[in-house]
């Protein structure tokens, strides 16, 4: 991206704004996520990084108003002129998918095993965008093509496709609803290295037109995509800022540890690579 676009995007009105979001266990009042604020702008990507159990997924779910009934959310999630946290369920539902897209880690369990890929596309596009079958099919093919899949996967059942193909189907399905914000929760974690690379490239492309939030425990994936980082630890944001700045000079012990562990994992590989070069 040029400096010009960066500047324009930074000035753009936020597409989604979370203010002091928290998540509690309804029965006990125990806080699982506390006091997290973030802003998503068009053309920008925010990366949320943290260990498992740090509250990344709960935060994502509360942004979409999709917390399980045993949990309760507090704070505000402003999207499309309303607060997702206190919206009427029907209103929030209308905004999910078409406005606010979600990509999950487990593509295998995200699809209904008893329905073809086409049935998933047709239902979503009819429900969310009011498209008739022929038009929906055309759109599905268009978006599948963008993700590098041929139109004949529409006839496939989920079990006939590999995890990587299903993940790309999910990306195509999410994008075909033309959301302005995409929340991607560990979208590459279940993928092999080559698929991971392809999906990261795909997400990098879709970032241009939308706001992207990517959640990952892998700083290498996040570094490849995110303009800004938010580090979570035990349900709280412990550090945030531009990706390059946070990675170059991590302030919080938790960030330093995440960085050091990732570097340690990569070190033998890098040593071999450098020895070769």
């Amino acid at each position, binding site marked *: *991206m040029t400096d010009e676009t960066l500047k324009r995007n930074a000035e753009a009105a936020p597409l989604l704004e979370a203010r002091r979001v928290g998540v509690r266990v309804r029965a006990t009042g125990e806080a699982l996520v506390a006091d997290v604020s973030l802003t998503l702008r068009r053309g920008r990507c925010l990366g949320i990084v943290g*260990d*498992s*159990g740090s509250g990344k997924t709960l935060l994502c779910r509360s942004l979409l108003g999709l917390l399980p009934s045993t949990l309760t959310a507090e704070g505000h999630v402003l999207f499309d002129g309303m607060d997702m946290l206190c919206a009427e369920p029907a209103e929030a539902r209308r905004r999910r998918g078409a406005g606010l897209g979600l990509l999950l880690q487990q593509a295998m369990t995200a699809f209904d095993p008893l329905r073809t890929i086409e049935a998933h596309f047709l239902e979503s596009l009819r429900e969310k965008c009011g498209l008739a079958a022929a038009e929906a099919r055309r759109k599905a093919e268009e978006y599948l093509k963008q993700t590098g899949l041929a139109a004949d996967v529409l006839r496939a059942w989920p079990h006939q496709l*590999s*995890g*990587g193909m299903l993940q790309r189907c999910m990306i195509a399905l999410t994008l075909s609803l033309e959301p302005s914000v995409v929340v991607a929760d560990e979208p590459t*974690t*279940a*993928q*092999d*290295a*080559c*698929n*991971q*690379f392809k999906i*990261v*490239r795909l997400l*990098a*492309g879709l970032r241009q037109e939308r706001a992207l939030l990517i959640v990952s*425990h*892998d*700083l*290498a*994936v996040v*570094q*490849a*995509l995110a*303009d800004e980082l938010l580090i979570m630890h035990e349900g709280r944001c412990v550090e945030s800022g531009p*990706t390059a700045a946070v*990675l*170059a000079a991590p302030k919080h012990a938790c960030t330093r*540890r*995440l*960085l050091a*562990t*990732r*570097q*340690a*994992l*990569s070190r*033998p*590989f*890098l040593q*071999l*690579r*450098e*020895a*070769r070069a």
Partner: protein
Amino acid sequence: MTAFLEARGLCKSYGRPPRPVLRDISLSLPRGSVWGLLGESGSGKSTLARLLLGLERPDAGQILLEGMPIRRWRARHPGGMSVVFQDYVTSVPPRASVAAIIAEGFPPGAPRPDSAAIHALMDRVALPRFLSCRLPHELSGGQLQRVCIARAIAARPSLLVLDEPVSSLDIAVQARILELLHELAKEMTCLFITHDIQAAVHLCEQLVFLHQGQCIASLPRKELFRTDNPHVRDLLACTLVLETATNPTGYRNESF
């Protein structure tokens, strides 16, 4: 040195008409070695693991452990081989406690493990002891996979097959588990199946690459970047590495 595990000319097909999944695979793991088995998803890695564990029979070829067919070797060494699968959720009974799951790993007929033995294993895989009464759904993915690893090493197996054991864990846990496996590997022969070259390089002295059911390369770790095999080079190029000031490689965010 004679091989601990020797596979010769393994072939396996599934379906009708038969679709070959493995074609003429041979490998020989020295005792105490740690080998990596790498390849894209669908390349036949897990099928090969099932054959080597004796969970399925090859259509052709032979597998010998210390010179013996698998069945005979297993009869002589109860609990001698063990496995950790990728999907930890389906690897454990949903209504058993952590302690009960780990206790499953002790060979049948052995005295019932006491809580000290269970705690020792939990310590080994960095699981806090207070989790011993929890049920699988009360654990995080990383914790549950550590339970599976504790169960797998309970009987002190001499062969441990790890089928993508760290792929769904967070980085910090991955690092700790890899460290643990590194230490365990001194006591046993390990086959580490993964698509993650960085993890494999961390742990393995020899890397075997599968592509569409064929063994396309078997490289000592140090030779990895010298290979001219196009598929291996593809895998190397796909590997996302965290780039920082201490390892500048001309990386830019815009490269995507």
